[in-house]
């Protein structure tokens, strides 16, 4: 009696999984009809976000971010270089987003992901245009030496909303960043000094390790649009079924840093407005997450 019930239960479960694979759109729509999503989230609910600063000890600034199952690790490394003639008082930032084969079965070593250079460029545009980074802070000696910051973001697990997670990790890595001490050698070259023995031996260009002052921090939210329903923070399963999504990036003064909607079905103005208001709500949540992670790191350091 018990085994028969268990067998029919198993048969019932198998059918659901098969239905999920064979008819993904119908599977999703049956959930949406009840205003819920396959992973039991509400329509406008975002997945749990965690930020851990200082994940890469060899980098000058780093962060590990999890947005549900999507995992990103970002690291900033600074290198001294001579600034360009057009802007002798400014440093520069190079942003690179990588999708190694570990992140998804669709990415293989000979088959790089199409999304990687696009997300790379979008991240660079957003970070520069939002005014979060003041390039003048990256200057050491005007006209001779400045910092070149290499920001590398590696996707460790791709489960939807890649741009959102990448942006949070970039922001967190810059929040964690501390510029190292620097000194000028006999040949006039500027080099970084690590450790404590250097303190007495060298004459320093900058007196102390410094954190960058960040301006308006941008926060983003990707929403999938299906008929009249807005799903916030889609997973990769939802993204593959619903081909229409909008990524809205807002800053702390409610201005729109970027709205990217690439193709998909025609979206009405109400849908776009809905996505913008969801992005604004998300900004408050994300700011709290970032502040908590900074506090957590400071507590760890004093212990």
């Amino acid at each position, binding site marked *: 009696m018990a085994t028969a019930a268990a067998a029919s239960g198993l048969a019932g479960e198998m059918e659901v999984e098969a239905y999920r694979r064979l008819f993904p759109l119908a599977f999703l729509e049956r959930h949406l009809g009840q205003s819920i999503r396959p992973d039991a989230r509400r329509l406008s609910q975002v997945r749990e976000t965690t930020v851990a600063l200082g994940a890469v000890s060899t980098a000058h600034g780093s962060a590990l971010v999890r947005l549900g199952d999507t995992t990103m690790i970002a690291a900033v490394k600074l290198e001294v270089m001579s600034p360009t003639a057009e802007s002798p008082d400014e440093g520069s930032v190079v942003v690179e987003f990588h999708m190694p084969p570990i992140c998804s079965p*669709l990415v293989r070593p000979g*088959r790089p992901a*199409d*999304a990687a*250079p*696009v997300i*790379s*460029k*979008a991240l660079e*545009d957003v970070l520069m*245009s*939002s*005014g979060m980074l003041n390039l003048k802070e990256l200057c050491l000696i005007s006209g001779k030496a400045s910092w070149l910051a290499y920001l590398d973001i590696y996707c460790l697990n791709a489960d939807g909303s890649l741009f959102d997670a990448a942006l949070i990790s970039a922001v967190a890595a810059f929040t964690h960043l501390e510029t190292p001490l620097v000194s000028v050698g006999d040949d006039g070259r500027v080099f970084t000094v690590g450790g404590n023995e250097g303190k007495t031996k060298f004459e320093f260009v900058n007196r102390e390790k410094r954190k960058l002052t960040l301006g308006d921090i941008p926060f983003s939210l990707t929403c999938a649009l299906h008929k009249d329903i807005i799903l916030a923070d889609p997973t990769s399963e939802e993204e593959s079924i619903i*081909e*229409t999504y*909008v990524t809205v990036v807002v*800053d702390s003064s*409610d*201005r*729109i*840093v*970027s*709205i*990217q*909607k*690439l*193709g*998909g*079905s*025609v*979206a*009405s*103005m109400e*849908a*776009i407005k809905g996505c*913008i208001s969801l992005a604004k709500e998300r900004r408050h949540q994300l700011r709290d997450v970032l502040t908590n992670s900074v506090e957590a790191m400071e507590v760890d350091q004093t212990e």
Partner: protein
Amino acid sequence: MEDTRRADGRSPNQLRPFSCTGNPLHRAHGSARWAQGDTVVLAAVYGPKPGTRKGENPEKASIEVVWKPKTGQIGRQEKEYEMILKRTLQSICMLTVHPNTTTSVVLQVVGDDGSLLPCAINASCAALTFAGIPLKHLTVAIGCGVMENGTVILDTNTAEEQQLKSFAHLVFPNSRKSVDSKEPKEKDEEFERGLITSVTHGVMSEDDYFNCIERGLAASSRISDFMRKTLQKEASSVDA
């Protein structure tokens, strides 16, 4: 309110002179040369060809876009343009008509004087029509910029794009016109036009963004009419 004059003498809502040449390339299945002022893009469509690339859904037709810049190597900017175009064109094509096929769209930038992406999208839409690829509707793309005083200017050129703090490239479906001209005009306007693609650069306020969309929508009916006339002319010259 003061009438804002732009550097090249245009009014804020004025577009540059458009031109579209149908099928300049004879080997391609369909091609179009779309010019907006000095920005010129040549689009060529080859397809449908049999087979899809690995990773694409074989139950639908797939679109492959190749963007060739005027000078320089292919970098991230070109990859971004390719992805924007691919996703925009995928949304207008009827992909289930020819499953398991690939249609290639090759874009060559001949001249770049601002609003390059909208010009390319218009060129590829025209080229797809000339190639006979089944489409749900046409796309109309327009570049809008926001000046410091909040005025929205349309069809920005390179000098304006470099000066402006923010600009947006918007793509709308073309305006509907009923075949039966006896139907009242109000019915067309009732149909709400939406947004297919939006790519923004620079920070702007929410109101500025929706202003851009409004102005873009208004101008898009002019571009729609131009496209309709060009396509009708080409179709009639083919029959002749």
